């Protein structure tokens, strides 16, 4: 790069915002948290003599519906982000709002699922693991919904635009992460007991 060739630089580069990098590092550390949670689960499960799960394999209907809801909500977020990039603000806000609604349904169904259990967090080892791990995930879903709510509000208020979609993209990334984590948790608690 010689003296005369120093290029001019734009004020923002939406593809490489610091916040975008920051969100990836947050996801890296949060993903490790779930890896350690599942490590603890399998470590304890493999060494126990208790019947596992103590009530037999869990019923699949509600949790499958829930999985479907959560994964679909990711699609809505994906298209919402895309609409914003196409400068269609209202469509973007609407799509993200649908995703939040799906997320809310997931939370309610999960609480319902919890209330159906005959054991609590302190009944036995499985109960401790089940409520702690799904609880951690539920907390992340709520946090992700909060993020989506804030960025969709910012979009409606005109802060997030076609050229400045960074916050929406970051929140969307986090939401996809939360959904991806659920696949592993769903697999662990609902699929593996049937294998």
């Amino acid at each position, binding site marked *: *790069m010689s*003296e005369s060739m*120093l*290029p*001019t*630089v*734009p*004020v*923002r*580069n*939406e593809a*490489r915002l*610091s916040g975008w*990098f*920051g969100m990836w*590092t*947050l996801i*890296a*550390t*949060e993903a*490790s*948290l779930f890896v*350690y*949670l599942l*490590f*603890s689960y399998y*470590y*304890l499960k493999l*060494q*126990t*003599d*208790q019947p596992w799960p103590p009530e037999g394999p869990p019923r699949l209907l509600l949790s499958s519906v829930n999985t479907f809801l959560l994964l679909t909500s990711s699609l809505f977020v994906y298209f919402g982000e895309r609409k914003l990039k196409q400068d269609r603000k209202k469509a973007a806000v609407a799509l993200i709002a649908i995703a939040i609604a799906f997320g809310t349904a997931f939370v309610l169904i999960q609480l319902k699922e919890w209330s159906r259990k005959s054991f609590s*967090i*302190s009944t*036995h*080892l499985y109960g*401790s*693991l089940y409520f*702690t791990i799904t609880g951690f995930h539920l907390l992340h879903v709520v946090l992700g919904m*909060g993020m989506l709510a*804030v960025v969709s509000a*910012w979009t409606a208020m005109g*802060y*997030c*635009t076609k*050229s*400045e979609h960074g*916050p929406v993209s970051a929140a969307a990334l986090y939401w996809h992460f939360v959904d991806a984590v659920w696949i592993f948790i769903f697999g662990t608690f609902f699929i593996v007991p049937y294998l």
Partner: protein
Amino acid sequence: MAEAQAAQIGSIVPGSPEEKRLHEIWEAEPGWRGWLSTTDHKSIGLRYLFTAFFFLIAGGIEALIIRLQLARPNLSLVTPEQYAQLFTMHGLTMIFLYALPILSGFSNYLWPLVLGSRDMAFPRLNAFSYWIFIFAGAFLYASFPLGQAPNDGWFNYVPFSGPVYNVGPNIDVYALGMVLLGLSTTAGAVNFVVTFLRLRAPGMSIPRVPIMTWGTLAASFGNLFAVPAVSLAFFLLWLDRNFGTHFFDIAHDGKALLWQHLFWIFGHPWVYVIVLPAMGIVSMGLPTFCRRPLVGYMPVALSTVATMLLGFEVWVHHMFATGLPSLSLSFFGAASMIISIPSAVATFAWIATIWLGRPVFKVPFLFFAGFIILFVIGGVSGVMTAAVPLDLQLNDTYFVVAHLHYVLLGINVFPVVGGIYYWFPKFSGRMNSEKLGRLAFWIMFIGFNLGFFPMHIAGLLGMPRRIYTYPPNMGWDTVNMVTTAGSFLFALGVLVFVIDVFYSIYKGAKAPINPWDAPSLEWTTPSPPPPYNFAVIPFVGSRYPLWEGRLAEAEGRSRLDEGYLLMNGRETLGTTAMHAEPDAILKMPADSYFPLVASIFISALFVALLLHALIMAITTVALGLLSLVGWLWPRPVLRMEAAA
């Protein structure tokens, strides 16, 4: 609004109106307002250094009381319970509240200066990580005056730390305090990683990065993946203690070894987290006093990264005596031996640098050279304990205590003190006293070896670690007396160092811009640097910008007086991750109270959890989240400035 603001190239003369304007843009508000709201990485870095050093002194005083108790057989200066709390607080203070935070202090202060930037990638997050650190420190110490401090050693093994055997608030304080501190560590790690990827001066491609940044970068990546393990372990323990879960509850098929796994999956990477940045300090400072570049920059950088990666595969060597299958022991024993190879690469690079250079025996050089000796001793005793059969003999004896103190003081404290001497002119604008500095070094070096070397012998004689006292006929009397004498001598050396620092801050000679004739960018800024660091963002053409023309291997030419003029509000330059090509002007945030406010609410949440105060917990969560939203609220002011 994608304004393509053409960044102008130019230069700014000291004392010009442009320089004044930069000053106004970047300066913190005067008085307490600025003090509470500043996001200047230099202020935050110095606060980290001061606070961490304060914890070093607190932990040191605890150690001295321990040493008095052990000076003679059958003493009862403190009660056994007080003794348990003392060694626990000593350990957790040194490991968690001193060793990493002090290095974060260096990195926070120095990174933007050595990378040619005006601040860290997330200045407010930086302030946040400091506030959380100091609140977590206060939290961990809160129960100490009540005689209810953590009392199960810093690695806090179950079942003794569980609800059955430890009924007071002691362990709950430790558990919640560690989760809180983990937030600070993680926030810091995020900041370093993104700063490295994004904020290097144009032209500072990967092979030209100052060597010290590799250590902090590797440590920060390590933290992102390791800290969740310990936060989770402590959180699960807190659930066991407060809500009747069974993770570590052996009676209900929980496993005590799960604690050890989670703790050491974090704990061993952590060892490298608190030594790699310190080794980086040496790799940065030592060559300056050898009047030549570091020998083997590339091997040292690569071995830094390799050490961190291998550091994730050796945790079981803390658990050799727990009855794991011998296949597992062989694997982790071998990995623990292999990890000595990258460490040896760095050691030979330092020795070669001294050998091939023309050493100038200034105070920082003494500390760096002394560090190499201690590092070799600590490294060799580490390889010894990596051998499974020998470890089974040495496990839980004073030999291990000797090893870890050689490693932690040798590789952390000596580089840290050397680093403070090295960058003291930049930190304070003054030169330190060579006389006092030399005195401090020799007292510390002799005191350290006198204090800690005999611990190897005590261990070989079978003295277990953490015992409260011992009978007179064990043959341990002399080694313990010598150790106690050495520890007080070492403390005296630290005192001389502290006196030197305070004396020199007020009475030292004014420091020139580059007193050591060093090669890196921080030495192009005035001592101390102005709030904006660099009047223009420099262009970096080689690994040693200030030694170009003197080195045969000079690759290119840096331009330091002329560069991007960025003065439409707080701005710095974003560059690409590999080649550091100019990519975007980054609008940096203004000072803000939000980091402090958010930290207060988050810390209050942990108090609420400790007290089981449900309403307080809900309130603090709500207020904490609100303050995060306020913190991240889009800033139209900046965009208007940009459009203008």
